[in-house]
Structures are given as C-alpha cells and as structure tokens.
C-alpha cells in the first residue's frame, strides 16, 4: 500500500471533513486553533494522489515553540482524525512526519482517539470499596478494545514513543476519561443507570424549582464569575475571562456547523447556582467546563445542569456523553478519588485511551524539550 499525500487545507475544507465524520474531538475542529491563538496552527488533509479532491483524513496541528530556538513541537490534541483501524497507519503517519519536519518541527505529539479498555461504574465502585487496587489500570477491565493494542503495536513499530505514566493529571490530554454511553438508550434508561444519590439530587433540584436553560455569548461573564468562585474554593488557577470569550466566539461559529458549542445556566429563584460549557461534534458530546455557587448547595444545581446536558446530548443524537478526565487513582486516601466517584454516580464507564505518543524528529532538541517538560 502506498502512502497518502498530505497538504495544508482551509478551515472550510477542514470543518466540512469533520462534519462528515461520525465523531471527532472538539480539539480537532479548526476553531480550536483560534482558542489556542498563542500557538501557530495548521489544518492538514490527507488524500489519495489518484483522487486529490477527496480527503481521507484531517488533523489540526498546533505548533508549540521551543524556548530560544525557532523550532516547534507539533501537537495534534486528541487527533488526528484518520482511520485508526487502517492496516498500515504508516500510510498516514509517514507523510505527516515528513510534512511537519519540513515545517520546522523537532518532534510530534499526538493523541489517537483510540480506546483501549473500559470499566463499568460497578467495577470501579467495587474496586474503591475493596481498596486492593490503588490504580484503575490494575483493575480487571470489563471490555478490552481490540483496536487499542493493534494501534499501540503499530505506533511502536513506526518509531513513536508511548506515553509516560504520570500521577494526577498529565500535562496533555487525559488518558483516562469518564463517559456515559447514550446509543440506544432512553432518558429513563439513563436515570436507571445512575446511583441513588444522583437520582435523588436530580429530583431534589426539580422540587426546589431549579431552572436550567441554554445561554448565549452574553452569559460568558456570569459563567466566568462562578468559575472563579469555584477555583477559589478548590484552589486551582482559573483561566482569564478573555480565554472563554475567545473560545465561545471561535467554537460556536465554525464552518459547516461542525461543532455544537453551548453554555448552560441553572438558576434558582433568580440566582445562578451552576453554569457549564457543553460541546458536541458528531456523535460525541462533552461536559467541558463547570462551575457552581458556594451558596444554595442544597438545591443541587450541579446535578440538575448535568442531567439537562445529558438529556440534550441524547436529543441531539449523540452516542456518548463525555465527562472528560479522571485520574487513574482508586486509592481511597487520595482526594482525587472524589472526582471519579462523582462521575461514577452517572452510571457510565471509565475509558482508557492509548494516550499521547511522541515522535522525535530531531533527537537532541526532542531530548532537551522532554527534560524541560519534566522539570517544569
């Protein structure tokens, strides 16, 4: 099999290709380049030289400059969007390396959207209660995805370096996420899958009169205020308001309608008690950012807004509702376990992805960069 060709494509071409796919990460939509405006970006398309008009793959590349040199790490977050089940991934990846090398990259980092293993909520709950396996990766999975091993095996053969195991949240995109499968399920099925506490809280919010509504760009300011309040409470560094304004402008108005980007608000008697960002690309929907008020916790705005987002994802025809990253700790002594337990309550499953893989193009510069990243 001969390799595909690769070329720079326009945002319109890129968006049209994404829109025609069953699913893709929102980090691979052309709009994401505008969100990460401090990095140079490029849309790439793969095609068969015999049929140049038809794309067979697309990728968003973010060029992250190395300190002091005009060389870049080429980063394809949760991408590229290619046929990962291909017999020979080299058809895509060899031309990618050639192109990026010419563009001045000393290395490539990518996150194939390929799942390797899955664990059901029940399995996770039992593992935490048992306390015998402090790492999710050590627990016997409920599903082993055949493509995961095949892809990892091919990448190794093509010279890519597997992800380093990191504690907590790694620098890049999470290797473990939590997802609620929606395909073939009704709202009732979703409720039945949740644990008692989630169901009780959804009811409670309803009784208390919490109202969830879809917002617009004018709601970003209020979202951000609540998000800063959440950040102060939980001691993380909040991103500034312009980041979200830029995100809304770039993500919500993409060509070919390739990305459905929404803000949701939960109000109780006129007070904003929760506010979130929801994204959908094809059949994949995400809860991306969330914030909740310190006051009026008892009206359970967070549960109400999650339920609405999940229901709307179902109504929009999504097959997955993705609550994004979890750390892989099941150690009941680790505070991170709280996150996995909150998400586990939705009755979904933890999914392990193959993680982020690197291809060094310039050994010396790549090694220097790797050291720099590890020392940060």
């Amino acid at each position, binding site marked *: 099999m001969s390799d595909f060709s690769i070329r720079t494509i326009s945002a319109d071409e890129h968006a049209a290709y994404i829109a025609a796919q069953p699913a893709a990460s929102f980090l691979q939509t052309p709009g994401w380049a505008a969100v990460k405006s401090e990095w140079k970006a490029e849309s790439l398309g793969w095609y068969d030289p015999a049929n140049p008009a038809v794309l067979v793959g697309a990728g968003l590349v973010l060029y992250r400059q190395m300190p002091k040199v005009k060389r870049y790490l080429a980063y394809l977050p949760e991408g590229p969007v290619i046929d990962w089940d291909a017999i020979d991934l080299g058809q895509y990846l060899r031309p990618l390396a050639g192109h990026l090398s010419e563009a001045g990259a000393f290395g490539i980092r990518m996150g194939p959207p390929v799942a390797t293993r899955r664990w059901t909520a029940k399995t996770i709950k039992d593992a935490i209660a048992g306390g015998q396996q402090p790492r999710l990766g050590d627990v016997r999975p409920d599903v082993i995805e055949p493509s995961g091993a095949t892809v990892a095996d091919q990448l190794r053969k093509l010279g890519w370096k597997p992800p380093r195991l990191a504690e907590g949240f790694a620098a890049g995109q999470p290797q473990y996420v939590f997802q609620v499968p929606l395909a073939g399920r009704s709202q009732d099925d979703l409720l039945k899958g949740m644990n008692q506490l989630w169901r009780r809280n959804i009811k409670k919010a309803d009784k208390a009169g919490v109202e969830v509504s879809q917002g617009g760009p004018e709601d970003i300011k209020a979202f951000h205020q609540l998000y800063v309040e959440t950040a102060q409470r939980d001691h993380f560094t909040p991103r500034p308001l312009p980041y979200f304004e830029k995100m809304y402008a770039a993500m919500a108005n993409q060509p070919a309608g390739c990305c459905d980007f929404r803000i949701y608000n939960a109000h109780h008697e006129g007070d904003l008690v929760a506010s979130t960002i929801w994204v959908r690309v094809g059949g994949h929907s995400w809860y991306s950012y969330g914030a909740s008020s310190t006051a009026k916790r008892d009206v359970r705005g967070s549960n109400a807004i999650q339920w609405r987002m999940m229901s709307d994802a179902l109504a929009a025809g999504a097959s997955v509702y993705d609550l994004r990253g979890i750390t892989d700790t099941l150690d009941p002594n680790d*505070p991170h376990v709280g996150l996995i337990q909150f998400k586990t309550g939705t009755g979904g499953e933890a999914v392990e992805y193959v993680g982020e893989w690197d291809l060094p193009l310039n050994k010396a510069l790549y090694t220097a960069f790797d050291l720099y990243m590890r020392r940060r």
Partner: protein
Amino acid sequence: MPLVLHVDSDRWRDHLRSTWNADIVPVAKGNGYGFGNHRLLAEARALGARTVAVGTYFEVPAEPREDIVVLSPWRPFLEVPQSRNVIHTVSRLADLVSIPAGSRVLIEVMTSMRRHGIGARELRHTMLLNALDRIRFEGWSLHFPMGAGGTSANLREAQQLAQAALDVRKSTLWVSHVPAQKLADIGDDVKLRMGTGLWLGDRGALTVRATVLDVHSVRRGERVGYRQRRVSGDGHILIVSGGTAHGVGLEAPTAAATVRQRAIAMAKGSLDAAGMALSPFTIEGKQRWFAEPPHMQASMLFLPSAVAPPAVGDEIDLDVRYTTTNFDKVSMD
C-alpha cells in the same frame, strides 16, 4: 495483694454532677482514666448523658444505647461498627467522599494542634460542600491544644474557626479544651468533650494504694534482686504490689513545660543514669527509692533503717498517672 484505686464515691459523684450539664459530652477512652471505660459509660448514663465520646472504633460498646462519637478519624482501611448510634469523625476531603452515604459524620477542622482535620482554606471545597449532602452531618469538631495559657488563645482560635465553619454550614460545634463557662462565646450550639476535667477533676476523691507483700531487713552492701545490686545502706527491702504490668515505673514522656520542671526532669535523669530511681510509692510521707527496676507485678523498694517498716498486708500510698495505670481493682468506697 492488689494495686487498688479507691474512690470516695459520694464525693466523686458530687463532682460529676456539679460539672456535667447537657452541653458536655463525657469522654471514655484508653484505660478509662483508671476507672475502665465500661464503668465510665455507666456513670455517664447515670448522669443523663445522651452522647458519649470514645477514642477509637475498638472502644465502641457492642450495642450502644446512646450516641457514640468516635474521636479518631475515620479511615477507609478501618473496620467500623455498623451501629446507627456511631458518629464518625472525618478529617480529610477524600474520606468525605469515601465514607458510606448516610453515615453520621462530624467534620474535624484543623486547629493549631495540627493533628487531624481539614484545613480552614479547604472548608469551601466543592467536595466538602457536595459531601454535606450525602452524609448525615452532625457538626464541626475542633480539638485545641491544652494549658500553658492556651485557653484564651484557644478561645480566639475557636471563635475564628467556628465562624469559618458555621459560614459553610450552620450546625453544632464540638470542642475540646475550652473552659466550660466560655462555650457561649464561641457559638450558640456548642458541645464540650470532657474527659480529665470530668473523671479526674476532683483528685481528692481518689486514692491509690498498694499492698506490702514482703519485708526483709538488709545490711549495707548486700546483693538483692534480679540484678544483684548492692544496697546503699542498712534498712529494709519491701516487696509491694504494682509493677510494669500496671504501668508502674513506665512513665509516659512528660511534657516539662517550665524551667523548674525541666530542671527536676534533668536531676531525675541524672539519678536514673546513676542507677537510682525514685519510686511512686510513699512511706511516712516520702517517696521511696526503687531497689531495682520494677518487676512485672511487684516492685522492690529500699527503706533506710531510720524508718520503721510497714507490716506485710499493710497498704501504702502511691502517686501514679491515672491514664497510664491499670489498677487491679477500682473500689467504690
């Protein structure tokens, strides 16, 4: 034969009754302050206490009739009694998430003690706020340092921390080592945990006595004991009940707070180094020297010839720490 704690029960119970009120939670833990936890639980019940605090999960009685607060923090690896009367203390965010839903919980707030607790800056953490909804929240727990003028400082700290906690969720405050008459200054719903101040608050009601088991006259330089040391003068060797099994001669590290206390400790230390140790046993109003380190259930004392020796079967007084001594018997006189 035995080492006995004699309690002037009328006087002791008068003190209990005048000290206890409905805002005070009796503490029964460890060796039961010398009385044994079982007796303390019964006395607390007689006082009318509806809630009692114990130290660890091992000390929770089999089928508790009253609410039992466990002071040691809940940990995921502990075996926990399933009774609905048990109130847990949670001191870490992760545990708030791990503890079974519906558990009765006090959330401990970190104080200047720095022992257990969730830091004041974490009190508004989303995990904590969400947990308040999945547990049966029984209040905030605050454990302060003791003594050394600490009480007024404790009071200030208690007021600040209590305010911070109550701003998160209004509930009962459970405190230790705060003067009972100052509770109203901290908040309007405050419970005071009390152990030493309650059970050992009137030392005059308590006497500890050992029995003289044997008396032998000795001459200076004669060898005695397991270790065959020479005695330092003419006199008597007394064998008295009370040894290492009772905790005699095994002092908990003392917290010498003042220069004078440290000086005494140093002097005692140098005596220890010289192989001489003062025993807790008093005869004719004076503490007497150990002839050698205490045995498991008895001790050998040296009594100089200037003092008339007691007879076998006599009782002698001794001064021990109630919290580190296992008495053979508690006699309610």
